[in-house]
């Protein structure tokens, strides 16, 4: 019976034979990993653990050392009133928090969706042969290269309700009937933030997708040409499936980034409930309101939400980081 097994189904030896070379490689790999692991533990692991710890205490900014353990109180606590009614308090029932969660998720999914589509279009254009392609490739990266603080300030002037160029243009061209306070008005604040973020990060997305596009061999497009595949169909049946692994990784990078958005919103629309995200709210509580423990609880939940969404995305999207597909 066993004699018929051939090739792939060959009898697997019970004990794995590990050659000296393999052992040596594993040792070298561990050695190279150690510095990074130490650095990560210091700059990421330790602060994370501290934040989680503080979220279970009554720590305040002025008295970190004297923090005392209070359990889940920052997240949820309740009080039975004399009338018999129960009053819940804490982060999990804080409407400000859930508003920030909703803002963040709405912002992240909208911006990443636009960036993915626009990034794909830009990448397809940059992948084509034309004169001056190198210059265009470099030029398109400029928004990404400008520090967020600078571009946010730049846009806030452009979006300014009195002197902004966008309002001026809109009025002159007759697109606007009156000047709009883009960043101050609750109706338009999120749109303003989205416009700036999409403008800023589409190049990054485009570049990651372009790298994926360039991995696709040219000759299969010639085969498709001979098969008579319409260009639109070529995109959906050939390009998209083949660039999918790169696209999925690009999206997850951007999603992680977008879910913890802080600087753009902090500069562009400070104190607007319409755009306040989890990070902005957490910082506010940590440092401005002197509710250090409460802010820590927010940071911890933010971490858990991002982790959950990322795991869900990797699992549902069957993302693989080794460049393969499925």
């Amino acid at each position, binding site marked *: 019976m066993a004699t018929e097994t051939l090739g792939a189904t060959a009898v697997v030896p019970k004990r794995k034979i590990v050659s000296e070379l393999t052992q040596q490689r594993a040792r070298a790999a561990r050695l190279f990993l150690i510095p990074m692991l130490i650095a990560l533990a210091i700059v990421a692991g330790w602060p994370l653990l501290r934040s989680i710890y503080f979220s279970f205490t009554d720590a305040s900014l002025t008295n970190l050392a004297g923090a005392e353990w209070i359990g889940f109180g920052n997240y949820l606590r309740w009080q039975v009133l004399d009338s018999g009614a129960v009053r819940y308090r804490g982060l999990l029932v804080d409407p400000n928090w859930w508003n920030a969660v909703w803002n963040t998720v709405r912002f992240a999914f909208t911006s990443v969706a636009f960036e993915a589509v626009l990034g794909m279009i830009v990448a397809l254009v940059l992948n084509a042969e034309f004169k001056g392609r190198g210059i265009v490739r470099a030029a398109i990266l400029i928004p990404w290269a400008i520090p967020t603080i600078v571009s946010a300030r730049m846009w806030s002037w452009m979006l300014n309700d009195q002197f902004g160029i966008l309002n001026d243009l809109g009025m002159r061209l007759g697109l606007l009937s009156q000047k709009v306070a883009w960043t101050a008005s609750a109706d338009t604040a999120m749109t303003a933030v989205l416009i700036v973020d999409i403008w800023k990060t589409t190049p990054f997305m485009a570049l990651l997708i372009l790298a994926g596009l360039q991995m696709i*061999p040219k*000759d*299969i497009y010639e*085969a498709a*040409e001979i098969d008579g595949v*319409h260009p639109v169909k070529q995109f959906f049946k*050939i390009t998209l499936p*083949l660039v999918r692994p790169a696209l999925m990784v690009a999206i997850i990078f951007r999603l992680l980034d977008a879910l913890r958005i802080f600087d753009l919103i902090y500069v562009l629309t400070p104190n607007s409930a319409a755009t306040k995200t989890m990070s902005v709210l957490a910082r506010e509580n940590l440092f401005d309101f002197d509710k250090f423990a409460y802010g820590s609880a927010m940071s911890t939940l933010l971490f858990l939400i991002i982790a959950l969404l990322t795991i869900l995305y990797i699992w549902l999207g069957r993302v693989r980081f080794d460049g393969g597909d499925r």
Partner: protein
Amino acid sequence: MAAIELRNVRKAFGMVEVIKGVDLEVRKGEFMVFVGPSGCGKSTLLRLISGLEDITSGEMLFDGKVVNALAPSKRGIAMVFQSYALYPHMTVYENMAFGLTLEKGKDKEEIRRRVEKAADMLQIRQYLDRLPKQLSGGQRQRVAIGRAITRDPKVFLFDEPLSNLDAALRVATRIEIAKLHEGMHDTTMIYVTHDQVEAMTLADRICVLRDGLVEQVGTPMELYEKPDSLFVAGFIGSPKMNFIAGDKAAAFSCATLGVRGEHMEIRPDGIWEGTVIHTENLGADTYVYLEMGQEEPVVVRIEGAAEYASGTVLRVSPIEAKVHRFNEAGKPVR
């Protein structure tokens, strides 16, 4: 089934002219091989016929109709690429069926029938559910050929299809392509290779290209027996034809005398004398390399195994009826 005619076809990439005015007729159902050294334009010529490249000037006719601007998919062609060009994310079945599913009015049953027929022909039926990356090079090449067959083309184009295979597989696949041609004798086939053995064994007619121009077109035996130039004489046949110049050629009243290794005899009364510098024993025959004061050593091909120690002095003669005489311009003297 289609006859292809090229009239003064030229192709330039920017300033560089690659095809410099080719006139050629490929007959219906013919197996035509384009052969030539690297950079002679043979692959470009094939791509012009396929329509993947536009011709710069001249005319291309399929069955008497000008197809200069016709899209590849409308020319009734199928192409097998050197790199196979399979769709990596599709199974073998999907690869073979993809072109068909796009044609209107093809029901699934008919597509399945056609794919399976082609798969049977190439013995790849058991691989239909696999992805290209799960196949060996030879199997991928069969899938690429199978994909072309399912299109039921009038013209079959091969762009160096065997160059990525190892020697044994190359011979086996070569034979299969020859069988394929027999089974599809209505289909015109054009095959590009730099390997003159492939050209000799597969072709009904060979077109030898050099520097973007047709050097000679003819059946393999015509090219072997009556090469139109020194270039063709040197390109066709293995080992390469010996070119003998100087006084020895003058004795035959020509500038260059071409003698194939198999048309040299070692005999005591030979008219030329040479020193053995190397012997290659191939089993069935032996190549003896002689130093005879020519630019390159002269090869003598003798049947069976033979041993000649280096340094041995031998006398050889060409078989007079088989020599090729060329003038100073490299053209034959007849």
